[in-house]
């Protein structure tokens, strides 16, 4: 972190000096045209480096937070699960001792609550786990197709149609296929939850360039559900923020998804589609160097 701050200060100084020089050159007139162009080029380069440094710094801060959260949640998970295990054993004992129907319902509800609390600790651990992606060079379309084969049957029962729209010749990407499947299952399940009466999900993938002019694969998952409110859009990736409390959402699914995409040095955003429904846009870099180098670039 110290090194980053030092480099940041250096870059800020260089940037200011070049800006000054550039302004002076502008004044000096056209005979300096050539120098001016080369300085402008340098200025652009430094600005680009500065932006990358800022993004690396924010990733580092995030990584530090995640590391602390990991330690904390492992401790919390253990401390909570032990009393939960006692409650579960107590309920199970009562189940065989008390047979009255009304009490049976109460016990079932209590047991359900135990499993729910246990699931939260499990999700919290998954969310905070410091697992680096096990990268493989892979055709993303294949990963998506495998994921679709898991959910296809369930979705057809819920009257949800899935359409895939992959552009021809998608470049290979270096991703962790299991983590990516987790991402797509989460997103597809969310899309399905947004359409209780049924509807359509489109999953599209194309080769593109991001704002830094780097080659990426862009995946867009759209549904025909009720869309997303501005408040939800702001907070949807926050841990424990859920719009599905009643149906058992823990508010960690999308946080996990965002964490995985960030570990792949990709981007994810969510937006309303003009005709209704929500679109989730994922951008993944195509080259492993861009994933591995990150800060060092």
């Amino acid at each position, binding site marked *: 972190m110290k090194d980053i701050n030092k480099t940041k200060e250096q870059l800020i100084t260089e940037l200011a000096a070049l800006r000054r020089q550039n302004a002076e050159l502008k004044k000096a007139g056209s005979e300096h045209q050539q120098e001016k162009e080369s300085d402008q080029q340098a200025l652009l380069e430094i600005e680009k480096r500065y932006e990358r440094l800022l993004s690396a710094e924010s990733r580092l801060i995030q990584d530090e937070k995640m590391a602390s959260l990991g330690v904390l949640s492992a401790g919390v998970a253990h401390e909570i699960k032990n009393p939960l295990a006692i409650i579960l054993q107590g309920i199970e004992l009562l189940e065989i001792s008390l047979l009255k129907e009304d009490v049976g319902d109460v016990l079932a509800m209590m047991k359900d609550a*135990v499993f729910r609390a246990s699931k939260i600790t499990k999700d919290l651990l998954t969310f905070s786990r410091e697992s680096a992606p096990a990268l493989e060079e892979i055709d993303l379309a294949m990963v998506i197709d495998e994921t679709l084969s898991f959910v296809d049957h369930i979705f057809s029962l819920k009257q949800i149609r899935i359409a895939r729209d992959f552009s021809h010749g998608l470049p290979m990407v270096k991703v962790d296929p299991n983590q990516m499947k987790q991402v797509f299952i989460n997103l597809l399940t969310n899309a399905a939850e947004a359409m209780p009466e049924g509807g359509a999900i489109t999953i599209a993938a194309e080769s593109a360039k991001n704002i830094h002019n780097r080659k990426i694969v862009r995946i867009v998952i759209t549904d025909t559900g009720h869309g997303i409110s501005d408040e939800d859009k702001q907070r949807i990736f926050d841990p424990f923020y859920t719009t599905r409390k009643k149906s058992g959402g823990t508010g960690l699914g999308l946080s996990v998804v965002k964490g995985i995409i960030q570990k792949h040095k990709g981007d994810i955003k969510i937006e309303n589609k003009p005709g209704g429904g929500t679109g989730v846009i994922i951008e993944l870099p195509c080259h492993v160097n861009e994933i591995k180098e990150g800060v060092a670039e």
Partner: protein
Amino acid sequence: MQEKHLKKILLVDDETNFCTLLKLNLEKRGPFEVLTTTNPNDVMKLAKENKPDLILLDILMPEMDGMTVAAALKGNKDTKDIVIAFLTALANEEDVRDMKGIAGDNFIFSKLGTTEELMISISRILI
């Protein structure tokens, strides 16, 4: 006569209430006789005296962790053949997979499964 068919289990967990309740659940539901202790230092003595068919061992205990207890049992000629299964409150499948290396030939069960599930797992290894 019936007592002969009972499988003897030694349950080791620092939570007294967990021991009491799991003992009752197992004994009421299946052919088990469950001895319990909350003190890992007593395990060796109890194991030698009672020759259990299975020792269910909590992993994280304040006085001594379950892995150390298991290593001591496996290192002693009188107790080395007793089947050991760790009981863990750790949260997910991945943890259990990660711990397979540490657990060696021993089994690992989740503390937050139902008694039915635990009984199925126990039956599988004892029958």
